[in-house]
């Protein structure tokens, strides 16, 4: 029985990992605390639903459209809000407050268009298979495979492609990378695009399973942030590790006590990490704190 919970936790954790990786792409490099990411994350399934149900397009075209639309919004947030602030060297608190503003706007525009209530994309119960004593639904298999595929693709790119090398250079030292001829604004835009894509895929995977409302972004963002911090800010493997850890931990909390205390345990973990090991499990020296 406990293994069932752990398997569920791992699969949920992989999705946390996808979302957290998108957040980490921005935070590890630009140090922008991208709170608007919560709203960007939430937009994708609405675009998916709109494309499937109102335009009548097939699932895979719709997913593509949803991801593209989400990327556009993430791009717009960067161009309209972060870039002008970065130009005048605004502090992290100013950027964070602006980001909160952007999040509030996006959430409420979506709520105005689609309504405040929870929407379901995929009605009906997913079929399932049993491996040993463990029951896994097809949706879960799909989630697991997609997340794994994304991680592999991303880490291969990060390790071997020019983009990956520049990204790591940017993370290590923005000034030096810029002096050595990296086009920092261009790479920043690319990172925002990629980050929004991760957010979109993550949220579509969740929404396909359990549906969505305009307010799902914030809890997810918080999980992603906790995943990043306990994994270790600065490492790109960290959000994946942290995500899976949180997923399993939350599943165990459900198993041993009740789903009510999931959030409390997660944030207790965050505070413990902030106090005792702010560099996270993978522990790299940090530029701040």
């Amino acid at each position: 029985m406990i293994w069932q919970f752990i398997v569920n936790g791992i699969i949920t954790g992989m999705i946390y990992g996808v979302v957290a990786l998108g957040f980490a792409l921005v935070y590890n490099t630009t140090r922008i605390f991208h709170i608007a990411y919560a709203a960007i994350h939430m937009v994708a399934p609405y675009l998916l639903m709109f494309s499937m149900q109102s335009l009548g397009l097939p699932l895979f075209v719709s997913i593509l459209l949803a991801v593209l639309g989400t990327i556009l919004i993430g791009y717009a947030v960067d161009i309209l809000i972060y870039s002008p602030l970065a130009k005048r060297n605004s502090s992290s608190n100013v950027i964070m407050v602006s980001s909160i503003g952007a999040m509030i706007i996006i959430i409420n525009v979506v709520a105005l268009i689609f309504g405040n209530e929870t929407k379901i994309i995929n009605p009906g119960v997913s079929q399932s298979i049993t491996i040993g004593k463990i029951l896994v639904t097809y949706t879960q298999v799909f989630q697991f495979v997609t997340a794994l595929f994304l991680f592999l693709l991303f880490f291969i790119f990060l390790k071997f492609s020019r983009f990956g090398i520049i990204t790591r250079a940017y993370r290590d030292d923005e000034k030096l990378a810029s002096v050595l001829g990296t086009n920092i604004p261009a790479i920043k835009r690319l990172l925002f695009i990629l980050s929004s894509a991760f957010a979109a895929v993550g949220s579509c995977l969740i929404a396909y399973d359990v549906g969505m409302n305009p307010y799902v972004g914030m809890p997810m963002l918080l999980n992603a942030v906790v995943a990043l911090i306990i994994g270790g800010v600065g490492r790109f493997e960290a959000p994946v590790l942290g995500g899976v850890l949180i997923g399993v931990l939350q599943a165990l909390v459900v198993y041993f006590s009740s789903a009510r205390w999931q959030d409390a345990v997660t944030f207790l973990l965050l505070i413990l990490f902030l106090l005792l090991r702010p560099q996270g499990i993978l522990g790299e020296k940090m530029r701040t704190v």
Partner: protein
Amino acid sequence: MDYVIHLFILINIYIILTTSTNLLVGTVNMLSLGQAAFYGIGAYLSVLALLSFNWPLFPSLLFAMVGTGLISFLISYPSIRLKGDYFVLATLGFQLIVYTILYNWVSVTRGPYGITGIPSPKLFGSIEIAGLWPFLILSTVLTIMVVVIFYNLIHSPFGRALRGVRDDELSMKALGKNVNRLKIYTFAISSAFIAVSGFLYATYVSYIDPTSFNLDESIFILSALIVGGLGNIRGPVIGALFVIILPEVLRFIGLPDSVAANLRQIIYGLALILLMRYRPQGIAGTYAIK
């Protein structure tokens, strides 16, 4: 007319919230997303004193303030050495933990059902503060007291030390000030006075549930303060007026309620972005957050 009084009471509650938060954000530059947690703790402690202990007004108020101030040490003491984003995250974590506890510890807080039938506070054991007019007077008196206290605090040597910490922490350390202790005291004072709003809210509405004290409320309080302005007394007051009166203006234009709620939020969001870009000290503030 009753409605106008109701609005004034709300404005009073929010002036206390923003003024107390201003001490934290505007004078020491500690951005906190946990203010609604202290608001909630203040409200629940007030209810504990009024309902369970059956205490009169001032002892209950004092109990809520001291209790909330003490609880603030739980979060301020460990998180004070964190900088920037990490400090905000710690307050955010605290906010979510407090909310989860208020929501789920049903045997004590009655959780999502909320607490009903909160008695009107009694002054000097006999005069009951009930109804709109007495509440308006009580809340106005408390608000004026809080504003005067904060005015004096900001202009006292203590306030000057806080501004010193805000502007140049290293120099303050070099001058021999215990910066961390100053910050912890600020946190406690700010939380204790936020508890006054919690007390007013709980006794005025006579019903509380955890959803009034969630993260959105924290963001709302912070937005109100930042829109109004940081660093002085004018700013927070204007911020509170703005966030309470704006919905009424929108209602006056004649928008349907469902649209108005979202539109209001969009205006707050836009205000935050535009202010951060063009006027980071807010409408009437003296300090631009950094």
